[in-house]
């Protein structure tokens, strides 16, 4: 069996070549993503400075806005800068699905247990 890690002139890597004209289009996309990431960061910093943390519904909405904006940024970095969007669908799924299964479970269990003391307080007072 041929091991493809030992092939010096790797066929997959050679397939990844593109022409000068294609390069112009790819760079245009890179600059577009740069602008998107910078604008989202600027919005986040602006909101962070403007709104103070509080026990209100407004703060809850802002907190979730931060999380959604962060996920947008992460999506652009992974799909565009890391080219995961250009890879085969099965590689994309092999990377993303196991990660989210573990992390969502971990978030659920940590937050539930972290807030458990509020329940205990209610029980004993």
């Amino acid at each position, binding site marked *: *069996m*041929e091991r*493809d*890690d030992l092939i*010096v*002139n*790797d066929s*997959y*890597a*050679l397939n*990844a*070549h*593109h*022409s*000068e004209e294609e*390069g112009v289009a*790819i760079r245009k996309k*890179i*600059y577009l993503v*740069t602008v998107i*990431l*910078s604008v989202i*960061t*600027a919005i*986040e*910093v602006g*909101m*962070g*400075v403007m709104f*103070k*943390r509080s026990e209100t519904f407004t703060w809850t909405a802002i907190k979730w806005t*931060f*999380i959604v*904006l*962060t996920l947008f*940024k*992460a999506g652009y*970095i*992974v799909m*565009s*800068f*890391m*080219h995961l969007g250009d*890879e*085969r669908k*099965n*590689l994309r799924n*092999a*990377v993303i699905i196991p*990660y989210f299964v*573990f*992390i969502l479970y*971990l978030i659920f269990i*940590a*937050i539930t*247990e*972290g*807030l*458990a*003391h509020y329940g205990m307080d209610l029980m004993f007072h």
Partner: protein
Amino acid sequence: MSGEAKTAISKEVLWGGGRSPFSVSYGKMMMWYFLVSDALTFGGLLIAYAFWRASSVDPWPIGEQAFRALPGLEGEYPLAYVALMTFILIVSSVTMVLAVEAGHRNDRSSVLKWMGLTVIGGIFFLSSQAWEWSHFIHGGGGCFNLAKEVTITTPDGDAMTLAAGERVYMDHHFGHLMEMHLLDPITVPLSEEGGHVVLTELGDHPHEAHLHSLRVNKYIENETEVEGDAMMALWNARSENFAFGAPIPGLGADWGGINHSEYATQQGYSNFFFFITGFHGFHVFSGVVINLVVFLMVLNRVMERRKHYEMVEKVGLYWHFVDLVWVFVFTFFYLI
């Protein structure tokens, strides 16, 4: 011992007829799997932080109040410095992706240019983080706990009652001399002149710090700065218990009541700050080193002999991952 591995397998039954099912090289696929496991590590750390924060009953420091200093400047610039750090990392990520793109065109000089800029961006980020750590360790002037309950009038004219044990924060200059006074009251004596508190550092270049104002609730909600009589009432109610900066666990000295973080009533906040930003910073550092190695490989025309620049793509994946982690650290440590 020699089982299946020694048995000849007919080429026809190989998965995909000898091609990788993902149509990527072995190295790139393994880089992705490594990044998934590393992302789980960072995810675990940030979730541990969330757990600690959720289970804490004390007020948790607010990011824009804890991180509002700029090097060499007085005054408050909430989140400005960390926004700059974030921007540096995003720009270095862009130069990296441009290096990968140039590699796909076999444009050696552009690869060198963009990779060089990426390394410089990484070094800028690490230097910024070094300053931020130093600032965080030294703190914003320190605080003392009240020995008894005090009621003061705030500048808004409202009455504010502070319980025994509440924290009162000093300004940067006064706090710095106060820390020296606690260590050695003889070389840095404390005096009161006409109802005004003065600390003097004796020696070749004597210099003084006057107590101008004190703050309550500095890193949490309802931050208030007080002067005049209210300030003196707080000062006179001080206990022996002082806290300065955020000592690194294990390195922080345990003297003169200086044994815990001024940022939070529990050390957990700074522990997680040092661990998560430190672990991320170590990734940036190793990314700079690997980038430098690949830069030298490109310089020595290794990639030209291979006829492809996939190594640049692989180190690029790692570098973007470092940026990706920072996006989450930025949100969960500084914004929320």
